[in-house]
């Protein structure tokens, strides 16, 4: 399944929730939608699953050779941001109901239930009412409801919220397994470290607009002002010896063996490496990548839309 989103716009009264958004979701990949609250992620997802319609722009879903204006029924699992199930019904009753509405046979639902409840360590609690479960366990049931029919595409709005670190890792593993099975995953989350480990591609949004998109390298290219490097020598080197190099923010240890600095993105690391090796017995030369979290924060703070709002 492939999704192509072009120039999508959605307005609510005076607010433009999604503003001319374009990106692509490739089959079998994991794409992460990132952005602060109110960035337009959920509005975008709601259009994708057909809950609302775009005011203009295009959604093109290609599945088994056919083209659709939104995800076709039964081909996706959706975990909404605002979620809940029937609190006064048991886990089993809730999941059976959702499975039956999906058109699944009772036997198939039971098989899937057995599998997923065991996978999420909830088998013993199948006959308990949902309200008896902790928030984290309810979250897992929601995820099971999304995956019950083994869809080729999964859309998860904040799948890690409400989970403790152990369960976050658990869900991360499950999502990696799904990816290995060829399931396409689109998710939005605020847990940058988890998302960075999981996703193949990213779409950073702010105030309805895409401020960067693509694989992590492309995101760095689009958002980072410069690159950070670390290098060390086998013997001490005077900082003055490095003055000819195009470095800024240069720092070093007392012994004068380990150095950190920033380099403009336009500089070639290869030529920098050669120049540094002329200054002393170079032991290590490493580019340090800024974490996604930092990139995300500075990008959101510096984005044109944020500046506009501040004005």
């Amino acid at each position, binding site marked *: 399944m492939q999704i192509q989103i072009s120039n999508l716009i959605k307005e609510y009264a005076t607010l433009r929730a999604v503003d001319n958004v374009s990106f692509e979701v490739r089959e079998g990949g994991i794409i992460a939608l990132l952005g602060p609250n109110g960035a337009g992620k959920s509005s975008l997802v709601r259009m994708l699953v057909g*809950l*609302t319609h775009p005011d203009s722009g295009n959604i093109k879903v290609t599945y088994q050779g056919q083209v659709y204006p939104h995800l076709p029924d039964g081909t996706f699992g959706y975990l909404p941001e605002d*979620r809940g199930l029937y609190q006064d019904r048991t886990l089993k009753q809730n999941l059976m109901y959702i499975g*039956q509405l999906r058109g699944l046979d009772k036997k198939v639902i039971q098989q899937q239930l057995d599998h997923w409840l065991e996978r999420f360590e909830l088998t013993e609690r199948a006959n308990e009412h949902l309200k008896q479960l902790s928030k984290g366990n309810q979250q897992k049931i929601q995820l099971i*409801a999304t995956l019950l029919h083994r869809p080729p595409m999964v859309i998860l709005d904040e799948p890690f919220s409400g989970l403790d670190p152990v369960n976050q890792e658990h869900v991360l593993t499950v999502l990696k397994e799904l990816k290995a099975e060829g399931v396409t995953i689109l998710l939005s989350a605020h847990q940058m470290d988890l998302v960075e480990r999981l996703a193949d591609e990213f779409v950073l949004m702010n105030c309805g607009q895409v401020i960067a998109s693509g694989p992590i390298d492309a995101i760095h290219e689009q958002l980072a002002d410069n690159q950070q490097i670390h290098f060390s020598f086998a013997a001490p080197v005077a900082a003055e010896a490095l003055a000819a190099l195009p470095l800024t923010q240069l720092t070093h240890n007392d012994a004068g063996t380990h150095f950190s600095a920033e380099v403009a993105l336009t500089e070639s690391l290869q030529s920098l490496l050669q120049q540094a090796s002329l200054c002393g017995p170079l032991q290590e030369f490493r580019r340090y990548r800024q974490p996604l979290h930092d990139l995300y924060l500075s990008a959101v703070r510096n984005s044109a839309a944020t500046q506009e709002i501040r004005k």
Partner: protein
Amino acid sequence: MNKNYLNRVTRVATFEFLRFFKWKQELLTVGLMSAGFLVAILWPVIMAFFDSEQRIAVFAEGALPEVESVEFVSLPPPNLRLALSEIGDEYDAVLVVDDFSMVLHVEKSSAWQDSLRPQLRDWMQSRKFDALELNEEQREFYHQDIPIEMLYTSRVDDEDAEAAETERRGRGLITGGILLLLFIGVVNGFALMMSSITQEKMTRVTEQLLTLLHPQEWMDGKILGVTMHSVKSMALTGGLLLLLLNGMHMAMVGGFMPLPLSFLVFLNTLFFLIIGLLLVNSVLAGFAATIDDPNHSSRSTVMFIPIIPVLISFSIVGEADSGLATFLSIFPLTSFAAMPIRVAEVGVPWWQWVISVALMLATLYWLRKLAARLFRQGITMYGKEPSWKDIWRIIMNT
């Protein structure tokens, strides 16, 4: 009809029915109602058990009054002072009769005195009548019953007009009962539909399920499920009521109580009640879909509107051949309550019945469409309710 549509609607309807059907609660309701009915049947026995007999000293000439649960003791006039001093002890009261007036001496006011007073008055009237010293023939003439013969020009085949009148009263009782049951069904639908839809919106079930179901399928399933519940409540109450009435009939008259309701009239009533409940529940679903939080919405009170047709229809019980009854039985928002009354009480021309059914079904079709549209609009507004202007626009578009 689409197989998937039917399948999903059935699933939703079954889920909604079972969601509100609690075995323990049902058994408790049946138990409580049965106990209530049993107490009602046995009330005279219970009262007799707890009632104590009153003892009254009477200072009068001639025969003593005869009143159930009261013992009258005739005393000679010299004992009056002693008897008065013994009120509350030996006697509950002292009755002093002087020609055609009487005084009842009691210690304090009590409920048994209220039922005694009219009986003493009758006794005194009888004494006055005896004082006239009429002969046997005059007495008989005075006591002769004055019959009123009823001749019905529209019921020439009725040999026994009295039987026809009894049947009419019986039908009035039945139609009153039908409306009472309908009232129970509508109130039940109000409570469940309100809770069903607003609870889902508040617990955020809606968004996930809307990716599995079309709003129309969801609404139709809900309307059907809640209607099944309303019908169940009506059947349960109706069955227990019938049991009670039969129990009373057996105790007082003997045998089963005759029901002046033919099978065809019963079927017609059932049809109108079910379609009516579907119609009412569609209106309720539409209103509930526009409410975001029932605790803070002023719109909750509007949901009482569907009760009005049932209340209006009470006015035509026993007057089913009036112009108002004809109008109410054809107007689609009241026909579900009024037409069963007309059919049970008087004959209805076939064309009126057909028009009534056609209008009612068309309104039902439109209302369920409207409910689904309001629902879709309501849930996509996220956090606020559609305004009356929005609602009006949707009504016009539907």
